[in-house]
């Protein structure tokens, strides 16, 4: 791990130690905010902090420069303790222009550090951001420790020797700002210097300019009395291992590739682009060296149908989309249920209904994936809890799908897809699962016979000599697989398809309870709310409240011990980014008066919101 600060100069300011910091970088989408955030993340990860990040893109590809719609943000929480979310309210806000200030200021903690680029507060800039008065002058920043920095001019001054045109030099101001933040949190410059060298290696002037701007920002704080103190966030005591930073979509793609390796199957991914799921396709399409076939189909229906065809051909078949695309796939997923083929379907949920708010997150598809098909058409449903967990969840989904010959949904969402966190890489030797054994023996082949343990029908790869057989969407006779309209057979097959899904519960580990094993209040979360709920419950536990937390990765079937655990608490609270999907399922399954907490605003719960809701619920209760 690299931890020296290159060319650091003399440090004369006082140093304070903090346990936890949340920083938000914000600026115009042209300001390089995502790049800045990613650099800070890498440096911080390498410094051994636990962390989580979340980028917030504008809805438009390129909104007009300087407007409120064009603001791009990147938030990181890092700590010497555990980090479950990118943090509620930033302690530090870096605002590159008035629009960024306007959009983000309300989130800054009282007395938080605000760094603004004063050079971008001209009359036009203020107008574009719908500011009537200049916020730098009207006292509206008084509740914060505001640092007015002439970022543009200082950058230009530092680059006076560089031959680049002014416009290009101005673009380096994000590195100047990053240098300042590095100083503030005592971070080394080297990782970013290395990055700059790799990235701009063939453009000497640009390379030099960025390096200089970065150092200048750092030196500016050092030399100057801008900040009275700077801070240290000691490294976290992370479990030993190899780590890397990963976002949810990349993790999901890797999970599929890893499963294909374990199962010794070729991977086929048939899909159609859609926000926020497209990056899974992008990532997979890079890995032809693994024999991965990606098929960008003409639409979602063709995407999922191609995957179903590939499953018949013996591939590990997967498809992925977001809510509206999943809706289109539902009819075909029924075909996968009926033909009892293995299929992984990734749903990266976004805010809806309909087109909704495509770049925003939500958990609104749980009921859709459970019930959105004609007649009883059960599938297995898993949900990932964090960006890196998308790997594990996709991996497990593939194992379940091939073991039971059943479609398996993986629920992710926009927050996981784009959020990132350090991921302790799994030990590849001990990954669960084993190679798939296709059926090959004609003598024992009955296409719709079922394994007594897994209830899987035999997987006979199309092309296997002697196993010619027909499958399809009409009801089939158990065993022979001939078309059957027999009433009793139909009932039997409907029940069998459900039983097959239910069997998955037998393989599930006991639910882990965080907090007291029984008591007043249990919070139940699923999917991406994990982090906020775990952190919120953690806060409450520290305050001595009687609250516990369980998280459900398995939504269909539920783990077998779920009901028993729920009954140990007086009240059950389910925070969800929807109108109460899991809440409804728990009520129906266990007849418990489960309370819901719905936040449907296109953004995740804050840790504090959960903590407050817990307090409120306990108060009502007592």
């Amino acid at each position, binding site marked *: 791990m690299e931890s020296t600060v290159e060319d650091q100069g003399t440090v004369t300011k006082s140093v304070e130690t903090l346990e936890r910091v949340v920083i938000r970088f914000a600026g115009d989408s042209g300001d390089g905010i995502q790049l800045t955030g990613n650099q800070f993340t890498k440096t911080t990860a390498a410094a051994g902090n636990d962390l989580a990040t979340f980028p917030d893109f504008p809805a438009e590809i390129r909104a007009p420069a300087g407007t409120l719609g064009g603001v791009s943000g990147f938030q990181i929480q890092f700590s010497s303790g555990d980090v479950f979310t990118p943090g509620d309210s930033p302690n530090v806000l870096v605002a590159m222009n008035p629009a960024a200030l306007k959009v983000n200021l309300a989130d800054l903690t009282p007395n938080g550090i605000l760094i603004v680029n004063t050079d971008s507060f001209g009359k036009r800039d203020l107008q574009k951001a719908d500011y009537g008065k200049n916020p730098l002058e009207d006292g509206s920043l008084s509740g914060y420790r505001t640092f007015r920095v002439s970022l543009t001019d200082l950058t230009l001054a530092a680059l006076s020797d560089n031959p680049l045109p002014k416009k290009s030099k101005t673009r380096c101001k994000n590195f100047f700002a990053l240098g300042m933040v590095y100083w503030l949190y005592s971070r080394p410059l080297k990782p970013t210097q290395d990055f700059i060298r790799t990235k701009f290696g063939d453009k000497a002037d640009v390379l030099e300019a960025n390096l200089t701007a970065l150092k200048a920002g750092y030196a500016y704080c050092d030399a100057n009395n801008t900040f009275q103190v700077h801070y240290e966030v000691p490294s976290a005591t992370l479990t030993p291992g*190899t780590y890397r930073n990963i976002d949810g979509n990349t993790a999901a793609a890797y999970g599929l590739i890893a499963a294909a390796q374990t199962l010794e199957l070729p991977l086929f991914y048939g899909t159609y682009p859609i926000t926020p799921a497209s990056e899974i396709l992008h990532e997979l399409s890079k890995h032809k*060296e693994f024999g991965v076939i990606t*098929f960008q189909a003409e*639409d979602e229906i063709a995407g999922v149908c191609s995957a179903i065809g590939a499953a018949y051909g013996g591939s590990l078949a997967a498809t992925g989309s977001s809510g509206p695309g999943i809706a289109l796939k539902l009819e075909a997923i029924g075909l996968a249920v009926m033909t009892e083929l293995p299929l992984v379907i990734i749903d990266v949920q976004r805010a809806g209904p309909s087109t909704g708010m495509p770049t925003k997150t939500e958990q609104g598809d749980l009921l859709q994936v459970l019930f959105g098909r004609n007649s009883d058409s059960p599938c297995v449903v898993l949900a990932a809890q964090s960006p890196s967990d998308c790997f594990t969840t996709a991996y497990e989904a593939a194992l379940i799908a091939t073991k039971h010959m059943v479609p398996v949904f993986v629920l992710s969402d926009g927050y996981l897809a784009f959020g990132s966190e350090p991921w302790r890489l799994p030990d590849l030797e001990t990954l669960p699962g084993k190679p798939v054994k296709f059926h090959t023996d004609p003598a024992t082949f009955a296409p719709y016979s079922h394994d007594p343990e897994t209830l899987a029908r035999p997987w006979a790869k199309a092309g296997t000599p002697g196993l*010619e057989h*027909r499958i399809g969407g009409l009801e089939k006779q158990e065993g022979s697989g001939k078309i059957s309209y027999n009433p009793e057979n139909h009932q039997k097959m409907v029940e069998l398809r459900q039983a097959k899904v239910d069997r998955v519960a037998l393989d599930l580990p006991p639910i882990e309870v965080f907090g007291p094993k029984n008591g007043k209040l249990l919070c139940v979360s699923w999917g991406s709310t994990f982090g906020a709920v775990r952190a919120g419950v953690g806060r409450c536990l520290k305050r001595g409240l009687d609250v516990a937390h369980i998280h459900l990765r398995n939504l269909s079937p539920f783990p077998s011990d779920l009901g028993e655990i729920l009954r140990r608490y007086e009240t059950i609270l389910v925070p969800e980014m929807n109108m109460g999907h899991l809440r409804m399922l728990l009520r129906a399954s266990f007849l418990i008066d489960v309370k819901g907490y719905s936040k449907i605003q296109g953004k995740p719960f804050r840790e504090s919101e959960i903590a407050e809701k817990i307090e409120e619920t306990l108060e009502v209760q007592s």
Partner: protein
Amino acid sequence: MSAAISKNGKLTRKDFAAGQDVRWCPGCGDYAILAAVQSVLPTLGLPKERFAVVSGIGCSSRFPYYMNTFGFHSIHGRAPAVATGLKLANPDLQVWIITGDGDALSIGGNHFIHAMRRNLDINILLFNNRIYGLTKGQYSPTSELGKKTKSTPYGSVDRPFMPLAVALGSQATFVARTIDVFGAHLKNTLKAAAAHKGTSFVEIYQNCNIFNNGAWLNVTDKSVRHENILYLEDGKPMVFGTQSPKGLRLNGAELEIVDAAEHADEILVHDAGRQDPTVAFLLTQLGSGIPRPIGIFRSVEAPTYDAGVMEQIQTAKQQQGEGSLKDLLYSTDSWVVS
């Protein structure tokens, strides 16, 4: 199809008949097509396990159940999509798609045109009976204008597709037409389709004797068919009719019908291999009138989608070596905590 060696040179039609009772209406044109397919497949030099038949939904789409091959009776309109995944998963399979005018051109129109565009190495047989058979007689996108059916009691007001023109507009590389009751012609066309590398599209005029009986009478009725059909044969002039043979000649970019004897030298000579699809397109425009061309309209070579996909994978593996999960995950950006 890659030229594969049959493990069993002695396959017969019977090997391809599946046990399941055939459930079309007595007299349906589908029977003849089934018989033709069952008799052509054994001649193609491939073992039985190398065939897969994929269909959508419709009377015609029941086809896979009657073939003792791998078979997938999928959902309405989606056979090309299912077949695409199957073929990419196992390029050794010779994949036949069986579809109807509703299945392929109504609900499945998009997958149909994209199959043409991609030129995946598959064979598509469209059983065109100009009606929705399975749902008991609504008009289809190939029904003639003014067609009275259960859903158009006052007659339809939309013009029919000419399936071959749709295919050519979407860049089909192999386009042919044949007729259910023309046994030999049908079989030869199927063989040519199987031999073509790329998407082979065959429109088969098929009689639905229950809901649209006689739709193709003007080319099937023994008394008139020889006058009305133009047999397209490579290298042969485009002549039709026996009583006073007529031929097709170009007038600018339009086709003219002229006396065959009188204008013998000017008659167009058929060449399915012409790169430019225009003559083939011209011939499709004769879709509803007389003469009605049957045979192979177009058959040209072009890169296939499956070959392209496989090649990229092979190249990547050669250049980068088989993918290693360790290398993928433990990338340069990782760090160690100890």
